């Protein structure tokens, strides 16, 4: 019994240690960001691997999510004779929720895991220690560019996801199912508010980009430098990112649309 309580205390202590380390780590990254801006070439390379290479999966998922939403929404709305509202259904659910959230999850799986594995392997093969020996701060050189790239890419990817998804819904709704084209766009325009819906979706994606990239680079930097440790960190990145995205999504939604 006493042993069990001790175990509980140990894991709780470990949790808060990790939390504290990750916060200090975040501070160091933020301090290192000006150094990245002085060497934009590092950022460009990371923007390519984090942003551009994530683009195909984001676009494909966006199209299919929009198409499925249109199909499902149509089948429900047609019972009420309200299939003209299909554009509103598709646009609101994508812009408010699915755009930022699904992009966040895909981003964690596609880019976050790669970041963790790369940084973790750098640590395991002592490249980071080697940089420190040469008086190069690995946080400035390795971590901060990746963090900044993720932070920049994620809102862009989420915006692309939303726009592409709405066009996916348009293809299925208007092209396949025969919803009136004018009604699709005009109902959407009259119901979707720029500030309440579009901006709040963008704010969500910015927050998710920050959190997912933070988790990814921290897990990589904090990994146990063995093959098993790197694999565990990569898994943890995806799992924690998913938790963080979904949990924060609820909190942000409650704050934004709660009234």
């Amino acid at each position: 019994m006493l042993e069990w309580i001790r175990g509980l205390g140990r894991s709780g202590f470990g949790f808060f240690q990790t939390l504290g380390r990750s916060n200090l780590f975040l501070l160091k990254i933020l301090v290192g960001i000006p150094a990245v801006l002085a060497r934009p070439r590092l950022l460009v390379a990371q923007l390519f691997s984090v942003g551009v290479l994530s683009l195909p999966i984001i676009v494909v998922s966006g199209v299919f999510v929009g198409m499925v939403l249109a199909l499902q929404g149509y089948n429900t709305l047609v019972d009420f004779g309200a299939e003209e509202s299909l554009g509103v259904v598709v646009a609101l659910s994508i812009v408010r929720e699915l755009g930022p959230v699904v992009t966040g999850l895909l981003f964690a799986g596609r880019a976050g895991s790669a970041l963790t594995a790369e940084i973790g392997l750098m640590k395991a093969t002592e490249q980071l220690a080697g940089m420190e020996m040469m008086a190069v701060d690995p946080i400035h050189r390795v971590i901060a560019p990746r963090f900044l790239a993720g932070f920049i890419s994620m809102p862009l990817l989420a915006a692309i996801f939303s726009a592409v998804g709405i066009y996916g819904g348009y293809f299925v709704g208007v092209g396949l199912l025969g919803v009136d084209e004018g009604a699709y766009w005009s109902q959407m325009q009259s119901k979707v508010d720029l500030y309440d819906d579009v901006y709040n979706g963008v704010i969500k994606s910015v927050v998710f980009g920050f959190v997912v990239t933070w988790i990814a680079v921290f897990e990589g930097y904090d990994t146990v430098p063995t093959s098993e440790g790197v694999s565990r960190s990569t898994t943890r990145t995806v799992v924690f990112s998913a938790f963080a995205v979904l949990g924060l999504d609820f909190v942000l939604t409650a704050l934004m649309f709660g009234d």
Partner: protein
Amino acid sequence: MKQTKTTELLIGMLIAAGFAALFVLAMKVSNLSSFSAADSYGITARFDNIGGLKVRSPVVAGGVLVGRISSIDYDNQRFEAVVVMKIDQAYDQFPDDTVASIYTSGLLGEQYVALDPGGSYELLADGSEIEFTTSALVLEKLVGKFLLNSAEGDSP
């Protein structure tokens, strides 16, 4: 060097696509393009009952969107709802005996204000008030009236 040029090109395309997507969301999806509050004038109308009218509900004349509701308040002295609507500056020829009525689009649709122009030569200007208004039809009241009438019809 070739490699970095392609990389930069692709990143540029990503950023451009991202901003283009934001632009599409702003212009094509949201209500930014349909009505902007910049070039508009406000007129006030008082209703006994506004039903389900909300801020940002449409204001139409002859079925055409000419403005939106900008605020709804309750006048504690006169026990009336005070509705302020912003009308597009392009439509500034409404006579001051225009009638404002609250209608419902469709059976379960949202409610909107319809303006029916009168014949006066005086025009509505910024800040002026519409004198003639028709309140929203509340379904329960109608049903109640109908039941009352049919009950009276049955009794003799």
